[in-house]
């Protein structure tokens, strides 16, 4: 067990406690394993990586068969069983269901009763949605097969979320907490060697002796941890996911190093370096989690505003009008249609009651309440009402509706199956601002036709 921990500890800084616990539980295959262990913690806390290395070390050092699988891949029980049997080294056997699976494992017992089995299942919360017997069987697999076997379940949820009516047997839970700032710093600084190598390699490729010299001189662990301190001061509030931070840190380090390599800034002059890096860091902060990789040379940051989006969206002319019509249909009540779209709709009598009602509903504007559903007939009627020119009701026009649905600008609310009898209801899924810009492009004032703004 000590050997195990010694091998793993340098790989996983700040996880010594968890490794020790795991080692105590399943570190020795000659001792009896617990039936099941539940590892949980947020994403990026090292559950999968830790378990993977741990199992690999176990396999290397002891007589243990291991299986690692991801529950998402197992869209049917059969595939899961096959994967487990495969990984445990029983390719020939096939098992159709849980019963056969248990039988297969049992038969193993007769052959080699002393070896251990470790099965790790990632994204274990998916097991809840599989066949009802899967999770209970896995939790009691040791008991059922009478092997020295342990099932490790990895998930982001606490185990309380698994309880169901039939109840589950007890399980040992192990929580991997989120790293605090100091720990994050320590983990990120383990990258130092690699980053250094990478940078040196890059300079060597460019064959710039001066830069290479500076690079060799400036790149010290202190320098790097200084950088990481700056980096975390910006990012730690927004993101605690270590892999994400590691990725961004590496991306930004190149920019941080640039002035040093040029020789314009001394590598000890932290404040000037900070002034230099603050802008790019803030820009990177808006891009975090997006994982958009820009090819070299194109560094302009994408403008995510609605206006840009609406202008860049290429829709055919009638497609735009259909979208506007859909928005109007979604955000006006059908009662108001006559008033809005028919030329001589008659005079509306102003009664005290309606005035009061409207005043009260000021905060309940239909544009803020969200879209209501409408039928295709109504959509077309409004479309024809707002369009000045006369257009035939052709296939091309009708197929535009389905195009808009495909683009997720409209969505079916109900009756997707029976479009033919006219009971299908649609909904417009774009916002007011977006439609206002679309309207501006085609020269149509959308506000004028919205009840809320009358």
């Amino acid at each position, binding site marked *: 067990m000590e050997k195990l921990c010694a091998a793993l500890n340098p790989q996983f800084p700040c996880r010594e406690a968890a490794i020790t616990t795991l080692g105590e539980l399943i570190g020795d295959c000659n001792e009896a394993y617990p039936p099941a262990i539940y590892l949980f913690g947020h994403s990026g806390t090292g559950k999968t990586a830790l378990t993977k290395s741990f199992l690999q070390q176990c396999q290397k050092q002891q007589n243990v068969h291991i299986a690692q699988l991801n529950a998402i891949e197992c869209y049917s029980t059969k595939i899961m069983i096959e994967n487990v049997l495969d990984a445990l080294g029983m390719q020939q056997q096939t098992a159709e269901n849980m019963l056969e699976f248990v039988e297969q494992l049992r038969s193993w017992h007769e052959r080699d009763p002393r070896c251990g089995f470790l099965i790790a299942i990632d994204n274990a919360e998916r097991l809840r949605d599989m066949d009802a017997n899967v999770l209970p069987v896995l939790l009691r697999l040791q008991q059922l097969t009478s092997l020295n076997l342990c099932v490790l379940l990895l998930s982001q949820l606490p185990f309380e979320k698994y309880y169901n009516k039939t109840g589950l047997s007890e399980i040992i839970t192990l929580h991997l907490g989120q790293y605090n700032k100091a720990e994050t710093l320590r983990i990120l600084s383990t990258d130092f060697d690699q980053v250094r190598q990478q940078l040196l390699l890059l300079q060597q490729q460019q064959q710039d002796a001066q830069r290479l010299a500076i690079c060799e001189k400036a790149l010290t662990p202190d320098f790097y941890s200084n950088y990481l301190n700056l980096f975390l001061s910006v990012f730690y509030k927004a993101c605690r996911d270590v892999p994400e931070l590691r990725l961004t840190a590496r991306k930004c380090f190149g920019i941080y190093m640039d002035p040093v390599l040029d020789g314009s800034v001394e590598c000890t002059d932290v404040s000037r370096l900070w002034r230099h890096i603050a802008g790019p860091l803030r820009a990177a902060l808006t891009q975090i989690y997006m994982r958009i990789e820009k090819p070299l040379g194109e560094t302009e940051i994408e403008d995510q505003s609605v206006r840009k*989006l609406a202008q860049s969206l290429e829709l055919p002319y009638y497609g735009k009008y259909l979208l506007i019509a859909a928005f109007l249909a979604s955000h006006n009540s059908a009662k108001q249609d006559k008033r809005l779209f028919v030329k001589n709709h008659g005079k509306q009598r102003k009664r005290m009651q309606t005035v009061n009602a409207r005043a009260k509903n000021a905060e309940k504007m239909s544009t803020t309440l969200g879209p209501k559903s409408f039928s295709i007939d109504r959509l077309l009627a409004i479309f024809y009402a707002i369009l000045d020119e006369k257009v035939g009701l052709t296939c091309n026009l009708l197929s535009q509706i389905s195009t808009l649905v495909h683009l997720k600008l409209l969505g079916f609310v109900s009756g997707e199956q029976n479009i033919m009898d006219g009971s299908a209801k649609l909904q417009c899924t774009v916002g007011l601002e977006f439609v206002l810009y679309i309207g501006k492009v085609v020269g149509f004032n959308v506000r004028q036709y919205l009840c809320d703004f009358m």
Partner: protein
Amino acid sequence: MDPTISVSKGCFVFKNGATRSNKKTPTKRKRSGQESEATSSLLGKEVTSQPFYAAYTECWSQLQSHIVQLQTESNARTLQQLVEFVTEGGERVGVGECSRFATTTEILPTAALLTGINQPDHLKQFETLTQRLHELQAARVCVLQSRDCATLKAAVESMVYNLIEALSAGTADTQLDDEDERDRDRKRLRRSQCTLKQLNSWYANNFGAAAMKRALVVILPDFECFNASVLQDFILILSAQCGRLPFVLVLGVATAMTAVHSTLPYHVSSKIKLRVFQTQPAPTGLNELLDKVLLSPKYAFHLSGKAFKFLTHIFLYYDFSIHGFIQGFKYCLMEHYFAGNAFALCTNYSQALGRIKQLTHDDVETIRRLPSFRPYVEQINDCKRIIAVLTDDDYLKKKLPQLLRDCLLHFMLFRCSLEFFTELVGDLPRCPLGKLRRELYVNCLNKPITQQPEYKECWQMLSFMSKDEFSAKVSKAIASTEQFLSEQVVPLELGEACADVMRKELQSLKTLLNDVELATMELQPQASDSTSLADARPLADLKQVASRQQLKEQLLQRSKQDRQQSISEYARALNKILDHIETHLVLAHLRPLQNAPPLHELYVFSDISTVRRNIIGAPRAALHTALNNPHFYMQCKCCELQDQSQLVSTMPDLSVVYKLHLECGRMINLFDWLQAFRSVLRAGEEQDELEPAQEQIDPQVQARFTRAVAELQFLGYIKMSKRKTDHATRLTW
């Protein structure tokens, strides 16, 4: 082949029996061979042997190859980038395996291709990508459509199946043992066996050696149509497998990147490494296509302004589908040539000369019947020659080459002048005549352009320009026209003749432009005659209007006279050159279609109504016509109608029921409807046995009625109401 005689109008598909057997026998016949076989079996010998068919196929194949070439050129850059990305991605994964960092291996390289909203069009683009990758032997590709991926299971299965099975036939590997391996794989594989495990072992078998590493590319051409949860799981699976299998994901995004971000939550998007590629937007693609192919002087076939506008209208207003546009254009082409063998003359000049000899009497008659033939005959003032042209085929055939030559030359000159004109008026403020070549083309062909107010506005703007601006503009226009001449026109047959005419014009323009440049801004008291004449005419017309307006006019006139008196040398030179452009280029060459030389119908397709009827489906209108006036389709004697709303008992029951239901409101009482139906039927029969039928409804009539109503319901016009008994709801308005 069975004859297609049927009462209903429709589209008949004849499956070409050869395709299936061809697949089984691995003979490597060329595609073109198959195609020609297919078309010949469809049309029959009697059509394909005609000269017009030969002319058509030649013209179309030229056009098509040009279009394909253009499209590959314009997509080349994005495609190249994508291919690089994919191969790079494959390599990167290979490297990633070596490095110890587990986190990097689980990240799936992903390319997002912003394609534009017409999704079906872009399938072709992805096909080209697939082909390219297969040629490079860099990757195995699987195109996964959303319709195959309703569930995660289906998605994974079809992905594995496509990667292993479907494409192995397409890529013939050189290594024999490899192929054997694959054959064995294929025999074993059933759909339900397509799991990732299978894929893993297949990959290890076939590409296990490090030297043969290939990326596995999964293309999702219609990203928006995917079920979000399926897609998330699918990406998670791929990224989990990334360490073992070098997957590369390509997403075809129709709207914008926000769609990707809103579909994929963080725990999924953290597993991918996204690179965005932008393809050419569809309208740009269309403009390029129009400028380079349809408006190229290379082809004898032209679309009339209206037809041209019609096709671009479908594109811009309805669907943004370039493929659809090309098909529409092809339809016009077919329609044009199918009109008769006389239209076989619509080729280049030398070939047309050969074809003139083959013309039969009927073909010559077709030519005589062309609308533009009449003005030609009328302008001949020799009586004998008129008779000869109208009756003697040989005489006309002798005359034809000159006529055709005039026509062809006219279109070339038109095109050259259009080039000049586009440069001249295309970038004026607010673009009154349109800024693109296609808009100007339509404008010039449709109406005499000099009479349009927009044209006058343009001319006014040109005359208000500063000297530097104006001369720069005109010289740029001259330069671009010259370039156009030397690059596109001269290599063509008759090109020299056209270029000669055009160069002469340009030369005189240059001298005039020189005058403009040399002219000073000094005032000169003399007014030029041409402008004063042009101005005087509209003023004379306007004298008769109301008094206040009259006053205004007179004031205007006075101010104009003032201006004319104080006209500068520069202004005069400017007017001169503008007049010259107008008379020698615009009026001479940019003539509308009705003023085109005789026999231009042979080259210009303008039968827009047929095309509209045939390529724009209007199912609602067609159904209405069929039910409202069955005579239109049935051509029977019994139900001819004088008036659209007339009800005749001899019409089919369905039609009667339909017409009755048109008179109702939203809810239809079935009993009233039946009564009306009965009375319509009875009106047709003899009135004598009216009395006994009053109380009792004939069961036969009732049965017919029920059946007709059921048919109407089947067609989707009504629905039986659940709220009100014995009522039907109308579903149309």
